[in-house]
């Protein structure tokens, strides 16, 4: 067992496990965000629960942050080794003849997603942590001194999507996420050794997930932008 993370297969396995975890997280994130389209109240209640429940805040949130950082750091580690494995490039290389653009450019789609996550953290996560843990306001209310002011989550979400530049960046980031998932979803299963009679069906489901989920996030952003 020792040294498994030093081997190519061990690293790919760890990369795949973190990817599968992040894909489940994405689904959960989408399930909460889509509530904002149907019900302000349901979105506020769920957001308040997720933002204040101890198990989410102190167990799941650190695991998620670790998963995100691990996935990116390991991605860079693997990319560096892969570049060293061919120090002299081909004069002519026809990669499109045998593989998809998505599979050959995971590092670039990944970097685009990383850039978005950094912005998302600055834009959303950092202010949220500031309100809750530095200002000590765990009420989730628009006005913490007025219990009738209502929850702030829906108001903040709608306000964020007023800015067309933010919405544009959001849409571009989710297009890159879709490209990343179009290869990454089924690739994660191959890396953990799952290639069998279910693989064909899994690849079909992967396409639905990889296109449908980012499209759903884009829909939410556009819905709130045009519904102001």
């Amino acid at each position, binding site marked *: 067992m020792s040294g498994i993370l030093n081997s*190519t297969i061990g690293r790919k396995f760890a990369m795949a496990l973190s990817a599968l975890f992040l894909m489940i997280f994405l689904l959960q994130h989408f399930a909460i965000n889509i509530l904002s389209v149907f019900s302000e109240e349901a979105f506020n209640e769920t957001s308040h629960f997720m933002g204040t429940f101890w198990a989410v805040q102190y167990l799941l949130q650190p695991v998620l942050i670790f998963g995100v950082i691990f996935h990116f750091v390991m991605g860079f580690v693997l990319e560096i080794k892969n570049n060293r494995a061919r*120090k002299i490039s081909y*004069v002519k290389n026809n*990669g499109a*003849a045998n593989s998809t653009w998505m599979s050959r450019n995971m590092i670039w789609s990944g970097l685009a997603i990383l850039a978005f996550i950094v912005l998302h953290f600055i834009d959303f996560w950092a202010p949220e942590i500031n309100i809750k843990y530095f200002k000590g306001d765990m009420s989730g209310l628009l006005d913490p001194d007025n219990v009738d002011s209502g929850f702030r989550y829906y108001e903040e979400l709608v306000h964020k999507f007023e800015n067309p530049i933010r919405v544009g960046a959001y849409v571009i980031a989710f297009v890159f996420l879709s490209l990343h998932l179009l290869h990454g979803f089924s690739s994660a299963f191959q*890396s953990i050794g*799952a290639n069998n009679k279910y693989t064909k069906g899994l690849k079909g489901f992967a396409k639905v997930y990889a296109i449908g989920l980012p499209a759903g996030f884009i829909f939410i952003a556009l819905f709130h932008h045009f519904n102001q």
Partner: protein
Amino acid sequence: MNLTLKIWRQKNANDKGGMVDYPVTDISPDMSFLEMLDVLNEQLVYKGEEPVAFDHDCREGICGMCSLYINGEAHGPDRGITTCQLHMRMFKDGDTIVIEPFRATAFPVIKDLVVDRSSFDRIQHAGGFISVNTSGNTIDANAIPVNKHDADEAFEAATCIGCGACVASCKNSSAMLFVGAKVSQFALLPQGQVEATDRVLNMVKQMDEEGFGNCTNTGACEVECPKGISLENIARMNREYLAASLKG
């Protein structure tokens, strides 16, 4: 057919090397690619120039010796073939053909288009074998029952000729298809079980030490493999490796 060849020329392992243009004329579409290079070399020798060094042996798609990266693809623009099985009818009169050696840090160029693939041999030495006791009570292999499906899959894995097209085609220069095939051919058979744990651990360790890259499942290797070795062999090796890591 009249063609322009752009060929990588490199005097020795330490030479920097570079592309050189060679026009060739009166090439028959029925020639194999290697026969076309033979014609070029005859012309070069006639002119007193150094012929182009390239690997070849059986010239019938079995030995895995011929390599070459032709117009951006290992073994050229056809499927399920080695370079010796590639015919000039795949090209058009007037074409420019770019010919390079297989590129990978673990496959250093020796001269021109010839690369050193002994890293594959060292991976095989690390565990690509079974030990058969010949003390007099050896069981005949045919007397050991083997599931037909497993026997077929083991045979398909064993058809890997170790040509290195998988490494050459992979954007990461990964050798996972080759090692996956060599692990699978034994992992699927009873004879391979005794050394299964050590085999996969040692072969993967050697693969990593040789400087091959990580598999990112692009599938380029499977497409370019002259023997159609499937990605399932890589998944099987991943399972074998993880199980072996937990055991040992």
